[in-house]
């Protein structure tokens, strides 16, 4: 049964690489995107942390900034 699934009547040498290439491409794109997103979130946290009280209060008044910060805290 397992051998049949792997050999696929001799076409396994084509079928498995096609599926593997697809899944590896998915994983690569996902992890690259995740890394880029984390990098931007870290940059945001660093910049936010270096603001003085007045500027931080202004920045915190925007709901999207609060949302970004809450997402960073969850990481």
């Amino acid at each position, binding site marked *: 049964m397992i051998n049949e699934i792997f050999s696929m009547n001799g*076409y396994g040498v084509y079928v498995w690489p096609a599926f593997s290439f697809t899944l590896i491409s998915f994983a690569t794109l996902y992890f690259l995107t995740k890394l880029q997103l984390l990098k*931007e979130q870290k940059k*945001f946290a660093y910049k936010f942390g270096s*603001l003085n009280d007045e500027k931080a209060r202004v920045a915190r008044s925007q709901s999207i900034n609060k949302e970004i910060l809450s*997402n960073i805290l969850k990481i």
Partner: protein
Amino acid sequence: MFKSFEPNKIFAITSKAPKYVLSLFIVVLSIGLMEALVLSPEDYKQSDAVRIMYVHVPAAWISLGIFSHLALLSIGSFIFKNKNFALIAKSLAPSGFVFSIIALVTGSIWGKPTWGTWWAWDARITSMLILALFYSMYLLAWRIYKNKEQVIKITSIIAILGVINVPIIKYSVDWWNTLHQPASINILSNNSIHISMLIPLCIMTAAFALFSLLIFLMKYNMELIKVKNKGLDRL
């Protein structure tokens, strides 16, 4: 009209959605892989080589769909002067590019057992390669040009010019003699594909669509955070 789609308002949704989309994608992909690799029948002519269809065809469909959306969003950003459209298009492009590469590579692998060659300058394959080149130009333009107004114009022109190629890809099998067979799935008429193969194909298409949605959401969130990073610099 587009105020409810403003980044500030939708970020609360787009930032939470990826984890749910990822879970759903894993479930749908697992079912799709089981169907495509084990449960679906082999073809009477192509035998098990037909299973490559379950990754090749959805990848081609999604890459064409995404490029059509890029063109529509580009036209929208020209007409309504809405920069959010350009941001959405920019976030959609990477998954579209990867899908066009998957379609080309898996098509090449499928070509060897069915046509006896890895590559042929057939109308469908060549037009698909041109689509991948348009995706590369689109993504490169975002990297090369730093001026926002300029890059939105250039990428929009690339998307609008590139979309001319989409109907060429679709009808290339009818207009020219190609190695590809005519379309097996028609919305308006009867399908020539058996239901036992159509079901795994639909499940895999749903999985691929979910993956492109996942990447889009992550990229879009990243773009919004980039914008907010610049906003913090200006404070």
